[in-house]
């Protein structure tokens, strides 16, 4: 019987570590394209890990093809990697499309905060008495006040956009369109 030699190669393991580390770093960033690059690196790390899990490379995995004393490579790990690569390809292209759409809409692809979250934060700031926290010592502003400021800015911007859109609409439709509404 052939002895299984499954000690993984240090180079591959190191590569997995570097890929995953860089991937996580990019994933924590804000623009969608960077996040996407992070996902690509991470998925490559995971795929490489699958390859390591399949053991050392050997002869081609076709029965009768390999010499009797050489162990065959594990084809299952490679089949799984192929599947994973195809899936990641599809989803990567989808994220790219999202990033492009975001760029079309906003001129950038940063993922914005949720307005509703800020509304809740604003509500909390209105209801609760401001309390001292560690941030206050540095900026002279509590976290609640900061949340309130951010919320106000968002609302202001949203209102400006809405007004802009209504103006545009009036311009497009003329007086009749405006009257119909």
């Amino acid at each position, binding site marked *: 019987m052939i002895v299984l030699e499954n000690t993984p190669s240090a180079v591959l393991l190191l590569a997995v570590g570097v890929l995953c580390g860089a991937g996580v770093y990019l994933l924590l960033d804000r623009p969608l394209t960077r996040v996407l690059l992070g996902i690509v690196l991470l998925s490559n790390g995971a795929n490489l890990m699958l390859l390591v899990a399949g053991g050392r490379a050997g002869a081609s995995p076709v029965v009768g093809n390999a010499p009797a004393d050489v162990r065959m490579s594990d084809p299952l790990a490679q089949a799984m990697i192929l599947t994973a690569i195809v*899936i990641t390809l599809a989803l990567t292209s*989808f994220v790219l499309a999202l990033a492009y759409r975001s760029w079309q809409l906003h001129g950038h692809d940063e993922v914005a905060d949720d307005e*509703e979250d800020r509304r809740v934060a604003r509500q909390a700031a209105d209801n609760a008495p401001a309390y001292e926290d560690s941030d206050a010592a540095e900026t002279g502003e509590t976290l609640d006040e900061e949340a309130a400021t951010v919320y106000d800015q968002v609302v202001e911007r949203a209102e400006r956009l809405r007004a802009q859109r209504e103006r545009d609409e009036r311009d497009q439709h003329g007086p009749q369109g405006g009257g119909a509404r």
Partner: protein
Amino acid sequence: MIDTAALWSVQTLVPLPVLLPLFAAGLTLALHRYANVQRVISVTALSVTTASSAGLMAAADNGPVVVDVGGWAAPVGIALVADRLSALMLTVSGVMLLCVLLYSLGQGIPEGEDPREGGRFGGTIPVAIFHPTYLVLAAGVANAFLTGDLFNLYVGFEILLAASAVLLTLGGTAERVRAGSVYIVVTLMSSLLFLTAIALIYAATGTVNMAQLAERLPDIDPTVRLALQALLLLAFAIKAAIFPLAAWLPDSYPTAPAPVTAVFAGLLTKVGVYSILRTQTLLFPDDDAVDRVLMALALATMLVGILGAVAQNDVKRLLSFTLVSHIGYMIFGVALASEAGTAAAIFYVVHHISVQTALFLVVGLVEWRGGSTSLDRLGGLARLAPVLAVLFFVPAMNLAGIPPFSGFLGKVGLITEGVRDGSGLAWALVVGSVVTSLLTLYAVVKAWNKAFWQEAPSGVARDLALPRSLVLPAGALVAFGLALTVVAGPLYGYAERAARTSMDGFTYVNAVYPGGSERGTGESVEVSEDEGQP
């Protein structure tokens, strides 16, 4: 040699829930110009799928039905396993998918309408893309429920993730692109964690077949096993939206069109819960430490989720938070790690799928009728649309767990088992369950008061009849939730039997390896290779 008897065995039914929607998806995509043909194909495919799932549910009661895909037996090929748990989940999700499809047909959105310009449905659904994607989603969910192979489970997840990402960003408006970005990045992350877990499991055991894993995992180093379990749970917990990993859900779900949100809320998190249930019972039984961690997480999920719901002012977001919160109940049942606890969790999953979906569909109707989902802009609907009021009230009370509804029965089952467990954490969870139930009642009653009872603001149209094509599917789903209460006895019995077979460990394994498992024969080529040589 093929004879007709082999063609029409029970096993024929097993691949249908995956294959039919996939074929139908291809057909509807090819026939995207013919909207009516698309509708007929989609409805037919999902009806047949649901019927065959129901057939499977009856057949699986006599023992798991296993199909070796491509004719390769289990350790080599991929097995599709329909045991009671899978078949039950399939059937309920089939009914739900069908109702939501009919609802979305009734919605009949005109194309090219901007959601902010007074579109009643909060956006357009490009129907040509909707049908194929929806069917692919159905196939992915069915694949995840049926598969007996960990890597195939990953593929199932990816199928439904890709479909759900498309559905979530239908129309590509700014709000949906933002929500979709968050959603797809988070779910991709969890898929990568899952893939990493699969790689490590394969390295540790040399297999990804779940039945074989159930046999080999007890033999490996306990520390390694714990790491593998933690990694799998982490991946599934993101999908199931369990507390520290749930923040993405209320952020992304509410922006989608009503039927899409309904399907997501009803099904996608439940696929995660199902995976946790399966791995905890089949692959990693008897692990007290992890169960205690799960209990603590269940408690946190319930409380944090429901407190989030109480703070919301938008019905869709409110319901999304109750969704997160009630995932806690299911995890509670799983973490009890007893037959009765698992049975209660299974029953609760079934109940919650129907109720949460029904609620989101009804909220779609509320949005249609009242022009908004914000509680500040709604009002007077109890007088203006009494049918709608009833449709909202019944599942809302069901969700809160008012007797005699199925939500009450599920909670009673969980609490009884928690009391029987008797540990400090279990008692904390019992109290937490009751508090969550009361807070759910508070949250839905708040929504009810503001949307239905308060004085109607000027924004709500006075005379506007609800279209029957929307009310009927929503009503059907509400009725289905009520029917679960009526048949609760047999259903709970089925859930108990499902729990028993998934807890005992050998039914599943024996079904996948007919004629004795590898542990039973005492010798295995792969294992002796690792251990026999110096």
